[in-house]
């Protein structure tokens, strides 16, 4: 998916961008409102991540202009303000959602997914591979014409594998992607989700292979 990140703090922007590229997304970075407008005019983005306090103005004026134009690219506002004061203000101005800094990357991902799901039709992101049709936004997986809606953690697990086919993931690495850092996750939990995903993938050419002592890998038979 293609994102536009409007954020004046370069370090934060770099960190967020590199984390998102890891998930296989394309991300452009604008430091000013002026650049952001130029990017929006030329690029076709699935989603805009917008900081509120920018050097050349308030992100909210950008929001207003953006809403006034014909573009309906969804916008998620990144705010560092107190929860109590201006969360509601940015929603009123037409942001689709907001997230408070500092944020859990998984939460950002979850919010992006929720916003894209609400605005479905905008993003056609189905992945077809090895006999499956997977829509990560809707969380829908169909194998041989039989559809199933995945739970959030199953869906994220499948995404991780589909983004890096053939790569081996240790249980710990998967746990870090799936759970928030304050959850005390036993390695059993990962096995449970792997087990469920295997069941969902039955009948396709895709399978998850256990490599004893190393972890798991998605294999494409055929």
């Amino acid at each position, binding site marked *: 998916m293609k994102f536009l990140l409007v954020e004046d*703090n370069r*370090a*934060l922007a770099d*960190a*967020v961008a*590199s*984390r998102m590229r*890891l998930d296989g997304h394309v991300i452009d970075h604008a430091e000013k409102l002026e650049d952001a407008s130029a990017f929006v005019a030329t690029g076709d983005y699935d989603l805009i991540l917008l900081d509120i*306090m920018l050097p050349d103005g308030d992100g909210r004026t950008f929001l207003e202009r953006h809403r006034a134009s014909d573009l309906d690219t969804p916008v998620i506002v990144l705010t*560092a*303000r*107190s*929860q*109590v*004061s*201006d969360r*509601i203000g940015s929603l009123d101005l037409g942001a689709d*959602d907001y997230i*408070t*800094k*500092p*944020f*859990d*990357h*998984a*939460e950002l991902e*979850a*919010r992006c*997914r*929720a916003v894209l799901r609400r605005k479905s039709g905008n993003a056609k992101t189905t992945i077809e591979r090895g006999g499956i049709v997977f829509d990560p936004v809707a969380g829908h997986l169909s194998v041989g014409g039989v559809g199933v809606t995945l*739970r*959030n*953690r199953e869906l994220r697990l499948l995404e991780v594998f589909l983004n890096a086919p053939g790569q081996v993931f*240790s249980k*710990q*690495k998967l746990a*870090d*992607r799936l759970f*928030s*850092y*304050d*959850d*005390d996750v036993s390695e059993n*939990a990962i096995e449970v989700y792997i087990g469920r995903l295997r069941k969902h993938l039955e009948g396709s050419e895709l399978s998850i292979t256990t490599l004893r002592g190393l972890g798991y890998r998605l294999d494409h038979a055929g």
Partner: protein
Amino acid sequence: MQDNPKVSGSLRKRLVLTLIGGAALLAFLLFLAVRNFAVQVAQQGQDNILFASASSMLDAASLRDGVVEVDLPYSAFAMLTTPADDRVFYAIYEDGTFLSGYDDLPFFGSLDDDRPRYRTAQMRGATVRQISAHRTLIGANRRINLQIVLAQTQDALSETLDRIFRTAALLGVSFFALAAAMSLWVTSSTMGQLNRLTTSVTRRGPQDLSPFRNPVPQEMAPLVKSLNSLMGRLDHSLSQSEDFIAEAAHRVRTPLATVRSYAEATLQRVDKEENREAMRSMIKAIDESSRTAGQLLDHAMITFRADQMERREFDLVELLRELVLQLAPIAEMKDLALNLHGAPSVPYAGDPILIQNAVRNLIDNAMKYGPAESAVDITVTAGPPVRITVCDEGPGFPADEIDRLTTRFARGQNAEGKVGSGLGLTIAQDVAGAHGGSIELSNREEGGACVTLLL
């Protein structure tokens, strides 16, 4: 806290008393002045008549062949006739020897000059006004001094004076009544200006710190000016503290966000397990500090808002539905279901931002302690008191700590390993308190913790 001002005296009373007291004093002085003047004028009138009468008697006297002849003219007595039939006495002396009249009427004048002498004295049981006058008669070979004393009772005079006194008294009383009425009117219209100012200050909402613009009398302008300047300073310092909290949040959160994002990105790249463990601890520590910082600032903002709370009508169910929608993506990460139960609409008057923040803290807690793929139940029932209950399917509150958990920074024994500041329940309690309510902690029979916000 509202401190009642120390009251010392009353402007209205002081003004009324001063004005009415002044009026009474003035009325009395007016009465005295009129009375004295009237007495003087009346006395003068009687004296003039007595003088004219005495003069005509003396004029009628003559010295013929060395013998004094006094032919008392009728007119001398006629002019002394009064409506009250005052009595008239006279005595005539020749060089100090009694000639005629009443001998108990002695001469009291002076022979050194020609001026007549007057006095008021008692005579035969009545107050009389007396005149003594004399005239030197010169004959061919003799000169004698003829002295005359004339006295008249004062019945007519006192009747006249009585009438004048009554009129003067009536005048004084009317003057007093009029002045008193005017002083009351002046007082109440002056006080009215003050009262109007008081009313318009009292009627303002707690958030209204704009300057006072209605026209006021010149004397009150300095008061209004200092009032306006006070409100200006208050407004400034209030908005400054609000801005400060927002700015502080921004300053703290942005660098934390940077560190966290870097740490997360790095964690995905490194393979060595001990490095990964270090990164995880780092992220956990960042979460801990950012959550604490955030909640401290929220707590400050909430205390600030609660202090000057402005209630407004809104639908609690609507508010909760919005909140659930906002939190849904976070719940989804753990495959939690957020279920909202209860009445379709619960109208309530309060501060929606405060209540939303309190319930958000309760739901955050429930999502944190509830196991994956469980449900968080939010129930709202109309009151009074309105009850908002948030229940999870987690381990529940430790029974022996349930009373302690709402104190600031207190955390349950079983909270180990969870990121938290211990301020969530404090915030909820403060918000409930600001709305005149409280919070209740309990455990479900089937397992799980419940927190009820009573408003």
